[in-house]
């Protein structure tokens, strides 16, 4: 998927949120979009998903609605729903097979994931931590058979250990050559542990496009490296 000279401006606004940006999503890598609050990350995702039509420019290899899984921030669910109910909702509304008896609902679950899934299977969402709920949602989302996966801040408010679990899951989905996985985050340190490609949005443009190592080349602290780019 490639965005060519894509611009976007909201109606009744004179600010160009995205200004002729060019970016090509990577196969086999987790694509990460960074940026200050209001930098246009969610707008960019909406354009990728086809929810927003760019003011100008084109999206090459755009996907249809049915080929996309788009996880938005903070969708609340009924606290009384159990883990298995949540997974069922994701899987069955996507018309995919689901076995309510088996907590091992995802392919290639490691031992740790199996243990966690088994623990959460019968547990109501209200009794889960935020990290556990996020992890379960990401796991269920990743089970959907799609071409493009979009995760808007999937690790927001999640503890460091759960953050890594989520990221590793996304990384494993990205390894499939027929899929693109793109996410946004404000927690940069965690990216050190995953194979990712970073796009940093600033002032409506892609201010940085490269790997984590390239981002931290001049400054080992990713937050500082980020700050340097956005203050240029």
């Amino acid at each position, binding site marked *: 998927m490639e965005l060519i000279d894509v611009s976007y401006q909201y109606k009744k606004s004179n600010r160009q949120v995205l200004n002729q940006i060019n970016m090509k999503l990577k196969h086999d890598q987790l694509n990460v979009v960074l940026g200050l609050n209001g930098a246009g990350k969610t707008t960019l995702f909406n354009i990728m998903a086809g*929810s927003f039509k760019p003011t100008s420019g084109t999206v090459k290899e755009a996907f249809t609605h049915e080929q996309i899984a*788009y996880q*938005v921030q*903070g*969708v609340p669910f009924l606290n009384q*729903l159990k883990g298995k109910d949540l997974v069922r*909702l994701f899987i069955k509304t*996507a018309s995919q097979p689901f076995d309510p008896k088996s907590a091992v609902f995802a392919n290639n679950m490691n031992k740790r994931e199996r243990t966690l899934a088994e623990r959460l299977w019968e547990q109501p969402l209200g009794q889960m931590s935020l990290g556990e709920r996020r992890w379960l949602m990401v796991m269920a989302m990743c089970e959907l058979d799609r071409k493009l996966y979009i995760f808007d801040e999937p690790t927001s408010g999640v503890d460091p250990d759960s953050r890594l679990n989520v990221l590793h899951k996304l990384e494993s989905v990205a390894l499939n050559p027929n899929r693109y996985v793109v996410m946004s985050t404000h927690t940069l340190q965690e990216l050190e542990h995953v194979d990712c490609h970073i796009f940093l949005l600033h002032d409506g443009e892609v201010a940085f496009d490269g790997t984590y190592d390239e981002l931290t080349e001049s400054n080992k602290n990713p937050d500082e490296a980020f700050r340097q780019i956005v203050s240029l």
Partner: protein
Amino acid sequence: MRKSYEFFILFIKENYYNKMALFWVVFIPLIFFFINHSNWFTNPPEHQQAYLQISVFWSFMVLISAVINTAVELFTLRDRGFFKMFSFIAGSKGSIIFGKGLANLSLLIISMVVFNTIVALLFQLNPLILIGKGLLLVVLTFIPVALFFSWIVALPFKAESIVPAFSLLTIILLYMTSSLTGFESFLLLINPAEFIVRVAELVVTSFEAFIYVNLTVLSVTALIYIMIGLLTFKLINLESKASRN
């Protein structure tokens, strides 16, 4: 259908655990009924008159279920990003809307049975007739009225601000019905409460007041409501107008 069923199950659970839904549809009408008709214990009205009075409360139940429990709830789902996320997962928004409508229709049917059973037992009316007439009203009016209010989902406000506004609106709409007479009134078209009350009158009188003109007006009104709803849901934007998600 399978997708709609999954959403139906989810929304049924929400209705079960969300006591406010039941509060609006069963308890509020019951409370107001007893406040207004406590004299029936000592001075019971004749049956036909009782049914007519009770039908106003049925109308309220249908209206509140269509406006608050369905249209406003769909608005909240859009505002919180549920609509957007699951329309991608399910491939369309239709199954979510259908599931929600069906769950609320079920809640309304159960509420109608509970309300009428309590009223019938307390005032020695025939429960089967009351329940039958109440359910017939639900079947005839809930879907068109819920669809008519689909425009609520497209409003550019936050969820917190529209719930009280529309709770008040339902009461105003019902109040306005009492001041109108005649099927020729164009207000029948723009006030769904009027439409429900008129259908309720026909149902209560077992269609004795039936004349073709009235039936035509009501049928055309229902059709217009349905068309408005289908068109609105087709055009509706999944993005919240007030919140980012």
